[in-house]
């Protein structure tokens, strides 16, 4: 009887969970399906979920009519470039905060977090004017710099929480054995912290890929990543749902897959270690 009851509740909970998560996922599924429809079918008043003439025409249209690969490449360079550059700057900082703690360490961490709270509009005009004067507007280099700085506090925080979990004794032992600090970092700390560093990198690639304030404001045709490319679909001409869907699918699929792989690390990273 008890077995029966728990089975019954399992069925109910399973149905409920699949129903709700299906609803949450639906807009993405719908976009994916629409990307394989013809434009006429895409706006049909009697939309069909699977029974339509599947076509790849929208994908070839988007690729033919717009420099999609340029934008894709821009996204890759900006997100990976800024994440790697960020790591190079953040690893030494996180190392000193985790292993050479002073009274100021906690304040410094809080201050770094607080820079994340500065609304970007507070620095919008100076950044825009500086970019204009240094000819950085609409360049990948400019966006790599901005994305590095925007995500630097998150990187330091994430690395700090990972480094903290590495036992002090291991580092001290290596120092006893006569390792220099550089050797200690490269040969002892980095291999131990590699999973943490990898997930920091991954999360920051995702964040930079999807960032849509600076990328929209500081780029035009040349350096525009996919966020800005998709935004150009906001003033459509004629029938465009299927093409919008195809372009959207191509913009989100790489990061969706990366994200699914890194979901566990995402929680730690984005909650600044407050939730593990």
């Amino acid at each position, binding site marked *: 009887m008890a077995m029966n009851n728990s089975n019954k509740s399992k069925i109910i909970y399973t149905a409920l969970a699949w129903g709700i998560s299906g609803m949450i996922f639906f807009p993405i599924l719908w976009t994916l399906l629409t990307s394989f429809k013809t434009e006429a079918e895409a706006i049909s008043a009697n939309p069909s979920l699977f029974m339509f003439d599947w076509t790849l025409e929208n994908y070839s249209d988007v690729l033919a009519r717009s420099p999609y690969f340029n934008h894709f490449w821009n996204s890759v360079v900006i997100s990976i470039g800024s994440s790697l550059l960020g790591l190079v700057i953040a690893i030494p900082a996180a190392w000193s905060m985790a292993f050479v703690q002073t009274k100021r360490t906690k304040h410094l961490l809080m201050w770094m977090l607080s820079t994340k709270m500065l609304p970007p509009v507070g620095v919008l005009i100076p950044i825009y004017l500086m970019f204009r004067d240094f000819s950085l507007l609409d360049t990948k280099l400019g966006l790599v710099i901005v994305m590095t700085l925007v995500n630097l506090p998150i990187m330091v925080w994430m690395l700090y929480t990972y480094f903290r979990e590495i036992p002090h004794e291991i580092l001290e032992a290596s120092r006893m054995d006569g390792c220099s600090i550089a050797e200690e970092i490269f040969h002892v700390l980095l291999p131990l912290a590699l999973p943490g560093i990898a997930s920091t990198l991954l999360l920051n690639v995702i964040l930079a890929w999807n960032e849509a304030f600076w990328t929209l404001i500081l780029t035009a045709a040349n350096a525009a990543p996919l966020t800005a490319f998709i935004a150009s679909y906001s003033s459509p001409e004629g029938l465009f749902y299927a093409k919008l869907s195809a372009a959207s699918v191509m913009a989100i699929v790489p990061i*969706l897959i990366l994200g699914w792989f890194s979901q566990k690390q995402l929680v730690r990273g984005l909650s600044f270690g*407050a939730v593990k």
Partner: protein
Amino acid sequence: MATMQSRNLARMMLFPSVVLLLAWMIVPLCMTLYFSFLDYNLLTPGSEEFIGFLNYEFFLTDPAFFASFFNTLLLVGGVLLITICGGIGLAILLDQAIWGRNYVRIMVLAPFFVMPTVSALVWKNMLMNPVNGLFAHFAIWIGVEPVDFFAQVPLLSIIIIVSWQWLPFAALILLTSIQSLDREQLEAADLDGAGPFSKFIYIVMPHLSRAITAVILIETIFLLSIFAEILVTTSGGPGYASTNLTYLIYTQSLLQFDVGGGSAGGIVAVIIANIVAIFLMRLIGKNLED
């Protein structure tokens, strides 16, 4: 334990991060502050002059400021309310024994990885469009008048889209927190005859408080600067009905080229964000102590 040498080295290794963040924050912020006292328009370069607090007077007495201030509060508050209530519900549901939990989790999490411009355009066109959108088809099918979302309820429409983006994040963080809950405590409560409701209030909620704090903090940081979703759906309209502070300052500075006025607005936005930040930093600071 740290030697003098490693202490100096530690300082050196902190240096780049601290200097870069200072430069990124303080230098432009000082420039914004300086511009905010000038009559400075990009269309008439060279004619800048000092006008004291006039920009602030114009900005703060502009009806657009009040509209966008309240819109900002509604947007942040509305999204927080929906994502945290929905997130707690989802977290409890996903914590139950269910078949295919991994697939459910992947589906719930997906919207978080969709870039803002894509989610806004997909919702605007394919779901919320009053003629060709799926919601309109559905409304006609059940025999009611379709809602013209972005004309009739622009701010609510944006709240819905942004909530969809952030619900996965809240649910995932809260789920992780629930899973670390001590099961024995719940079993003990069961033995004492506690109902599901009192278990929720007295055991689950206190355990979740830290995670909820984290969710509020992180979401607020991002929600105060919502921009792309507004740009590609309503452009702030109709009128100022869906303009938030970020978007208002953007139009003033980069569409009307009013650097002085936009800068004054930027400083006001920074002050408002600071007021929020002080509360939030206290919360997370307390949490860091444990």
